[in-house]
C-alpha cells in the first residue's frame, strides 16, 4: 500500500507535482476572491488567538523555510536545502537573492529573529519549540537549529504555519502593532498584503519579485463574512471564487449552489471521558460508551463532510509516515477496536456501578459544528441510558474548563485541529500537557511519549506509538470518532493537491480554473 493511501487526495483530487514557488495555473488570473468566515484580525503568527489569520491567510504573504507536499514530504521553501547533521542539529541553507517586498534582502537574521519570536511564550504554539536549545545564524545564508535532546517532530516544524518568516527590521519597528490592520507584515511571499480590515477583508497584490516568479493571480482579495450562511450567499451571488474551510458542507452547498469538496486529514476528533471522575472512572462505563457510539452515524452530524471514521487515537496516515507503511498497517491491525454494538454496550454498562445508566453533562463550545456533534453523541448515549445534557460554553468559559483543574474536566467532544505529518501531533491529549482532558496518567504512558519523540529508529518509534494506541484502546480514556476533514468550495476553480497540509503551502498557487 503506497503512503497516504487512506487519504482521499489520491482518489478525488489529482496530485500534480509542481516545482516549489510555482503555480499550477498556466495563464494569468487577474483577480480572485477568497471568502472566510469568521473574520481574522491579525496577520502576526504569534498573535495566536482566535481571530488571527496566520493559519489560513498567513501563507499568502509570509513563507516558511520548508513546505509540505500533499503527501507530507518536506520540500524547499525559503530554505533551498536543509540537512540534519546529528539527532540534535539541523542546518538550513537559505535561498539566495530573495527580497522582501520593500526591496530589502532576506537574510539569516530575519529567520533567527522570526523563529525566536515564534518560539516565544506569547505564541500559542510555543509547544512546537519545546526542545529547542538555540537558533543561530552561521552566516547570512545559513541558519543552524540545535535541540536539547533528539525530537523527531522538529523536522516538520519549519514547514508549519507556526514558523512563518518575516522581516526583522519591520517587526522591531512595529513591536505593538505588528500584523494588525494599518501596520500589516513584511514578508517575502507571492502576494504582498496591502490592507486588512477585520470588518471587510484583506487585499493582496502579486509580488513581482517573487523568487518563484510573479504568481499568476495578480490581485487577491480576501473577504470576511460573519457567518457561513452569508459567505455561501455571497458565493451564490458570484462575489466569492473560493471558500476554504467550510464547516457545514451540506448547508453551504445548498445555500451557495456550489459543491463542497472534503478530504479526510490526519487530524482527529475524539470523545473524551474523565478517567478519574465518577462515574466515568469505571472502565465498564467507558467501554459501554465506546460500543454505544455509532461512528458511521455520527459522521452524518458533521454537516455533510465526506470523511472517514477513526479507530485509533493517532490517524493511520501519520503512522504510515514512520518507516515502512506495511509495518504500520500490521501494527494497527492488532489494536483492539470497539465497533458499534449496542448489546455489548448495555452489557458493559450492566457490569458498571450504574447498570441502568446515569445523567450528566456534555461540554461543548458554542460553535455550531461542535454543538451538532455533541448533540448527536448525547442522543446515541441516551440509548443505553446515559443522559447527557449539553452545556454550550462561550470560548472563555470553554477554555476555563479545558485548562482548568484536571479533576474537574467534564466529558467532551474534542478535535486536534489540523495536523503535521508527525505522529506525535495526535498525542497532545495525553501526557503532562495542559490538554490531557481525560486526566489519563498511567506511568508507562509518559515514558512512551518521550520514546516516541526521541526514537531515531523508525521501528522503535512505531513500537512506542503502537503501544500508546494499545493502552488507549484498553483503557478507553478517549473514543476516537472520525478524522478531521478539510473542505473547500469553488465553482470556477479546482484546488489541486488539496488535502491535509494545505495551510503549509502558498495555497492559491494550487488554484486552477476549471
Amino acid at each position: 500500500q503506497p503512503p497516504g493511501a487512506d487519504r482521499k487526495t489520491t482518489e478525488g483530487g489529482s496530485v500534480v507535482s509542481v516545482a516549489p514557488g510555482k503555480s499550477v495555473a498556466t495563464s494569468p488570473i487577474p483577480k480572485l476572491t477568497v471568502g472566510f468566515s469568521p473574520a481574522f484580525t491579525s496577520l502576526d503568527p504569534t498573535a495566536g488567538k482566535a481571530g488571527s489569520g496566520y493559519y489560513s491567510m498567513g501563507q499568502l504573504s509570509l513563507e516558511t523555510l520548508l513546505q509540505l507536499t500533499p503527501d507530507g514530504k518536506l520540500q524547499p521553501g525559503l530554505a533551498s536545502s536543509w540537512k540534519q547533521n546529528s539527532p540534535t542539529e539541523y542546518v538550513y541553507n537559505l535561498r539566495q537573492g530573495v527580497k522582501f517586498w520593500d526591496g530589502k534582502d532576506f537574510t539569516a537574521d530575519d529567520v533567527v529573529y522570526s523563529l525566536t519570536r515564534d518560539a516565544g511564550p506569547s505564541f500559542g504554539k510555543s509547544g512546537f519549540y519545546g526542545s529547542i536549545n538555540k537558533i543561530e545564524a552561521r552566516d547570512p545564508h545559513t541558519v543552524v537549529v540545535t535541540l536539547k535532546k533528539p525530537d523527531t517532530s522538529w523536522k516538520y516544524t519549519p514547514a508549519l504555519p507556526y514558523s512563518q518568516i518575516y522581516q526583522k527590521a519591520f517587526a522591531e519597528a512595529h513591536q505593538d502593532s505588528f500584523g494588525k490592520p494599518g501596520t500589516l507584515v513584511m514578508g517575502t511571499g507571492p502576494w504582498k498584503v496591502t490592507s486588512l480590515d477585520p470588518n471587510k477583508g484583506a487585499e493582496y497584490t502579486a509580488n513581482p519579485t517573487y523568487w518563484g516568479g510573479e504568481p499568476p493571480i495578480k490581485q487577491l482579495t480576501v473577504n470576511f463574512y460573519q457567518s457561513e450562511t452569508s459567505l455561501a450567499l455571497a458565493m451564490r451571488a458570484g462575489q466569492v471564487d473560493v471558500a476554504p474551510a467550510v464547516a457545514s458542507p451540506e448547508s453551504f452547498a445548498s445555500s451557495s449552489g456550489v459543491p463542497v469538496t472534503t478530504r479526510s486529514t490526519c487530524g482527529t476528533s475524539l470523545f473524551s471521558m474523565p478517567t478519574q471522575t465518577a462515574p466515568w472512572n469505571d472502565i465498564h462505563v467507558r467501554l459501554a460508551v465506546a460500543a454505544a457510539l455509532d461512528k458511521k452515524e455520527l459522521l452524518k452530524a458533521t454537516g455533510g463532510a465526506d470523511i472517514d471514521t477513526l479507530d485509533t487515537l493517532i490517524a493511520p496516515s501519520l503512522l504510515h509516515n514512520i518507516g515502512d507503511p506495511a509495518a504500520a498497517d500490521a501494527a494497527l491491525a492488532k489494536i483492539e477496536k470497539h465497533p458499534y454494538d449496542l448489546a455489548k454496550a448495555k452489557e458493559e454498562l450492566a457490569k458498571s456501578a450504574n447498570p441502568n445508566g446515569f445523567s450528566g453533562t456534555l461540554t461543548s463550545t458554542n460553535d455550531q459544528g461542535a454543538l451538532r456533534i455533541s448533540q448527536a453523541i448525547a442522543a446515541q448515549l441516551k440509548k443505553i441510558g446515559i443522559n447527557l445534557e449539553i452545556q454550550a460554553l462561550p470560548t472563555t468559559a470553554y477554555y476555563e474548563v479545558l485548562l482548568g483543574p484536571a479533576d474537574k474536566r467534564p466529558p467532551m467532544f474534542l478535535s486536534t485541529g489540523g495536523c503535521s505529518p508527525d505522529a506525535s501531533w495526535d498525542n497532545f491529549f495525553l501526557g503532562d500537557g495542559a490538554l490531557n482532558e481525560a486526566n489519563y496518567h498511567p506511568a508507562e504512558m509518559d515514558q512512551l511519549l518521550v520514546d516516541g519523540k526521541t526514537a531515531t529508529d523508525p521501528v522503535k518509534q512505531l513500537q512506542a506509538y503502537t503501544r500508546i494506541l494499545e493502552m488507549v484502546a484498553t483503557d478507553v480514556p478517549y473514543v476516537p470518532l472520525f478524522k478531521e476533514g478539510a473542505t473547500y468550495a469553488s465553482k470556477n476553480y479546482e484546488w489541486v493537491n488539496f488535502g491535509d497540509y494545505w495551510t503549509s503551502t502558498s495555497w492559491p498557487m494550487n488554484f486552477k480554473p476549471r
Partner: protein
Amino acid sequence: MTVAEYDLGQARDKPRLIRRLRRVRGAVVVSFVIMGLALVMALFGEWLVPQDPAAQDLTAALAHPSGAHWLGTDELGRDVFSRLIAGSRTAFFAPLVVAGGAMLFGNVLGLLAGYRGGVIDAFIMRLADVLMAVPGLLIIIVVAGTIGGGFWTAVILLTALMIPFDARVVRGATLEQVPRPYVEAARTLGVPDRRIMFLHIWPNISAVVVANTCIGYANALVGLSGLSFLGIGVTPGSPDWGQMLSDGQASLFENPIATLAPGAAVVLIGVAMNIIGDWGYDRISGRGGER
C-alpha cells in the same frame, strides 16, 4: 294636581349581548382559536407530538416535508413539527410569566404611584426614564450574555425590566382616574384607600391593563425568541423557536419550511395576542360608557 313630576326615565339599554356576540369579528375568533391551540400544545405537547422531538435520525437529516415529517427534519434529523410543538411550551408560558409578572407588580406599583404619589411615584418614574433611555433588550443581552444563567435569567430580567413600563402605563391611567368625581366621592365617603385603588380605580383602568398585558405578552414572546435567536439564554438542542430559527438559518435553502415554521409561529401568536388585546380593550372600555 301636582305639576312637578319626577322623572321615571326610560331604560335605554336593550339586551345587547346577542348583538355584541354577533359583532365579534372573525379575526378575534381566529385569534382565540390560535391561542387555544397554543395552550393545548403547551400543556399536552408531550402527548401530542408525532415523534420524540429530541430523537435524531441522522440518516434523514434535512428531509423535506413528507407524511412522516410534516415540516421536514433539521440538521440532526429531528422532526421539526414535533420540535415546534415541544417548543410551544416555553414559547407560550415564558411570555405569560413575563407579561403576568410585570402586570402584577406593575399594577400594584402603578396604582400606588398614581394614587399616592410621593416617593414610589418618583422612583418608578425615574426608573422608567432610565429604561426608556437604554432599551431593556440591550441590558438583557449584556447581562444575560455576560453573567449567563440560562433561559429563566432572561425571563426574570425581562419581567423586571417590563415592570416599570407597565407601572408607568398604569400610573398614567390612574392619574387620569384619581381626579374624577367618582373617586373623590369615594374618598369623601371615607372608603379606605386600598378599596378605592383596587375596587374603584382598577376596574376602570382594566381596559388599558388588558391591552397592555396582551401587547406585553406579544413583546415578551418576540423579545425572548429574539434572545434565543441570538443564542442568549437557551440550552443548545432544546426545541426553542428562536433557536430553531437561528440554527435553521444555515439550511434555509435546503429545507426552508423547517426554518420558517418557527418564525411563522412566533408571528402568528404575536398577531393573535395583539388582536385579542385590541378586542379586550374595546370590550372593557365599551362597558365603561361615555367618557
